């Protein structure tokens, strides 16, 4: 590409100086191929070849180790990376991933991974692997050196609560506030002490019901004074007798003239009006009394509620254990489930980090807003016309990334303690819709040397539908679970040194938003180990737990990630409930009785005082009002009788007079006619 190639005849130019013509070498005419360009090209190709032959594998190994550490946060080691560009195959041997909790062990070790890349797809710029063979799977294998573990990233503020946090919050908050840490601890503590008289004395002064009673006492003392004054204002017997005297003086018969009758009626009317006014006064007092009595009833009801609350509060201080299966289950298995949930959280965070943004945002529970179009007012070059792009039938197309099969097989041998595994992962792809199949995982195996058998894992990620669905079922038929600590506190320790356990877990996640997770563990051949500072407590707990030989644990989490409904149940909770109920029934009843008595002693006196006061008001005022009412009623009746009698008498008198007059007239007529 130098000038002489482009200008081969420049020295032969007719314009060249004539003096130099004899010195000019006649160059051979150059052929059509630019050899001096091909040689550097070949050298570059050779360098590429040398690089890929000698260095590429080592660099890839380092790159995977570095990338793995950055992505997973634990050291990843690769024994050997071998690739052949022309054959399109890759073999990776001895892959070790450090366990973040125990860096001296591997969380997983793979003997080898081998796969061939499909050249046909590669020429279409697609990565398709027909089959990946994974062999020699080991868990918890010992590392040659302690692996590096990255420090945990600082928690971000916008991060929602994880599975473990929600488990802690929701399950534990359902337990009683003070004894959430350890229900069995309280049982032990209760068995040990049996009473809490000392504690109770300190707490008595803080009872809200006592305060309420004092307020009631003050209120009703004031009311009593008020009512005393009101009673004084009621019509007295003397006043009512005066009315009686006035009635006595009123003439109610033998009226000689109508004027006499009218005068009597007027007097009666005046007395009746006075009686009505007194009656009205009494009715008002009665209505007020009724209102106050209702208020008194309400006060007593409030007092009862408050006393009940105080009893509950004192019980929690008193540490009377709540014999409830659900509480037992939650308290006992929190420590067992929390690390499992923490692991789930860790993988969730990894998924959030590496999944495509549209799925990661769903995992985070974010709503994906439609993209806003922003107006671009900068000067843009006129785009070349796009034309029409035609799509022809694809008879052999590939998604961008597609591993068709991953065959996992592992067989133990004398040299290495591999598990006996067989499994198949199919259709790991960047576009399930294109291939029309979901990603599935089926795995079965045993780890005989570790006494783990019946491992099954079936999972499916279906992204062919509008909402991606993840389903999984996993189980371990039998494995030995060692040193399961159920309770560990200053009050003592309850643990299960070894148990034959089986696990079954299943779940469905729709759209990375709605979760439905289930876990069931069965613990068999269980022997509890109990140790407490107190011999009696140890004996009691031993006798309770020795009869329990197997139990189960069921945990469920359902709903949206930000608000999971978490529940933990265990038959151990029920068994313990029954055992403790029998054992502690009498003691708890005694304690409850003591508590009630203590409360009664403390507020009983005050209550009696208030009761006396209110009873006084009730009886005295009611009696007084009733008495006056009777008297007034009597007077009113008397007045009514008198009026009626006067009216009747006057009517009779008038009637007789009329008859006499008629008789007299008749006699006169008879006389007149001479009869």
């Amino acid at each position, binding site marked *: 590409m130098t000038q002489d190639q*482009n200008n081969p005849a420049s020295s032969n130019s007719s314009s060249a100086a004539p003096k130099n013509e004899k010195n000019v070498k006649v160059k051979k005419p150059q052929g059509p191929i630019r050899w001096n360009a091909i040689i550097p090209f070949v050298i570059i190709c050779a360098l590429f070849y040398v690089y890929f032959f000698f260095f590429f594998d080592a660099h890839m190994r380092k790159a995977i180790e570095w990338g793995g550490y950055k992505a997973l946060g634990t050291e990843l080691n690769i024994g050997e990376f071998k690739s052949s560009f022309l054959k399109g195959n890759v073999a990776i041997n001895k892959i070790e991933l450090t366990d973040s909790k125990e860096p001296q062990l591997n969380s997983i070790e793979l003997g080898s991974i081998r796969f061939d890349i499909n050249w046909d797809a590669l020429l279409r710029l697609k990565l398709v692997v027909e089959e990946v063979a994974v062999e020699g799977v080991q868990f918890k294998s010992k590392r040659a050196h302690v692996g590096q573990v990255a420090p945990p990233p600082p928690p971000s503020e916008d991060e929602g609560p994880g599975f473990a946090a929600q488990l802690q919050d929701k399950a534990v908050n359902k337990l009683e506030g003070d004894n959430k840490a350890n229900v069995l601890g309280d049982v032990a503590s209760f068995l040990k002490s049996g009473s809490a008289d000392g504690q109770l004395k300190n707490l008595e002064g803080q009872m809200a019901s006592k305060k309420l009673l004092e307020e009631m006492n003050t209120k009703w003392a004031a009311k009593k004074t008020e009512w005393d004054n009101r009673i004084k204002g009621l019509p007295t017997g003397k006043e009512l007798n005066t009315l009686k005297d006035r009635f006595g003086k009123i003439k109610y018969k033998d009226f000689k003239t109508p004027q006499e009758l009218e005068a009597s009626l007027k007097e009666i009317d005046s007395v009746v009006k006075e009686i009505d006014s007194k009656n009205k006064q009494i009715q008002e007092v009665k209505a007020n009394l009724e209102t106050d009595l209702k208020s008194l009833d309400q006060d007593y009801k409030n007092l009862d509620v408050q006393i009940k609350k105080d009893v509950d509060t004192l019980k929690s201080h008193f540490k009377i254990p709540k014999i409830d299966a659900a509480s037992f289950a939650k308290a006992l298995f929190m420590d067992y489930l929390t690390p499992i949930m923490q692991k789930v959280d860790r993988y969730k965070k990894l998924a959030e980090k590496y999944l495509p943004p549209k799925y990661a945002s769903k995992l985070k529970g974010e709503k994906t807003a439609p993209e806003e179009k922003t107006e671009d007012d900068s000067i843009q070059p006129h785009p070349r016309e796009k034309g029409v792009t035609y799509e022809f039938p694809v008879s052999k197309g590939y998604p961008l990334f597609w591993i068709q099969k991953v065959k996992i097989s592992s067989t133990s041998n004398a040299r290495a303690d591999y598990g006996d595994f067989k499994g198949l992962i199919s259709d790991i792809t960047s576009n399930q819709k294109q291939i029309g199949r979901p990603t599935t995982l089926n795995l079965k195996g045993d780890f005989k040397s570790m006494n783990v058998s019946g491992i099954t894992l079936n999972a499916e990620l279906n992204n062919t539908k509008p909402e991606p669905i993840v389903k999984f079922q996993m189980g371990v038929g039998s494995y030995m679970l060692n040193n399961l600590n159920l309770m560990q506190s200053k009050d003592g320790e309850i643990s299960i040194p070894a148990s034959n356990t089986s696990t079954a877990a299943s779940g469905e996640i729709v759209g990375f938003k709605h979760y439905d997770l289930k876990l069931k563990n069965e613990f068999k051949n269980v022997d509890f180990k109990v140790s407490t500072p107190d011999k009696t407590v140890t004996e009691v707990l031993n006798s309770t737990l020795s009869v329990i030989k197997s139990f189960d644990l069921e945990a469920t989490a359902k709903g949206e990630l930000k608000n999971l409904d978490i529940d933990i149940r265990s038959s151990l909770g029920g068994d313990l409930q029954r055992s403790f109920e029998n054992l502690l029934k009498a003691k708890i009843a005694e304690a409850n009785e003591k508590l009630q008595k203590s409360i009664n002693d403390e507020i009983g006196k005050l209550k009696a005082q208030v009761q006396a006061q209110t009873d006084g008001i009730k009886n005295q005022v009611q009696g007084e009002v009733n008495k006056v009412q009777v008297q007034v009623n009597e007077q009113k009746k008397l007045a009514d009788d008198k009026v009626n009698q006067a009216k009747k008498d006057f009517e009779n008198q008038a009637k007789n007079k009329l008859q006499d007059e008629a008789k007299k007239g008749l006699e006169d007529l008879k006389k007149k006619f001479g009869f």
Partner: protein
Amino acid sequence: MDILIKQLVGLIKLLHSDTGQNQIASGLAFGVFLGFAPFLSIQTLLVLFIVFIFRVQLGAAFLSAFFFKFIAFILDPVADVLGRATLENPSLRGLWTTMYNVPLLPMTRFNNSINMGSFIISIILCPILFILFKKLILKYRTTVVERFERSKLWKVFKSSKFYFWYSKYQDLYGA
């Protein structure tokens, strides 16, 4: 940029020499392909490879590509119509389907109407332009260059010391 300038200087020199008209004409003709094809496509890479391997004047090719990029821009509607007609032709459908399913060929983006039209235009123009450019170069040499060399100004410049030393340098180190 340095290479490009050198190539353009080389082009001018070659244009003023007696030979090399095939290199210039083929460069200019290949430039048509570069100008009409999408910037990043497999056919562009193929043409560049040919231009580098065979003795084609690179300056002419790049200059021509630059010029024909504008022409292609203006001819887009024509290319679109031509491409559509070709791609929609029922008798060619089998060919296009096969090509669409063959590795590498879809990377030419032949299934786009403008790309297809532009490709057809450049295929047609390439041999025509090669012959045309060759004739034009010869014509240029016999008319413009000769007339210039006969001018007094050129003769004065040619007899100057500067030109003497320049020629000397060219003989010793130059192309």
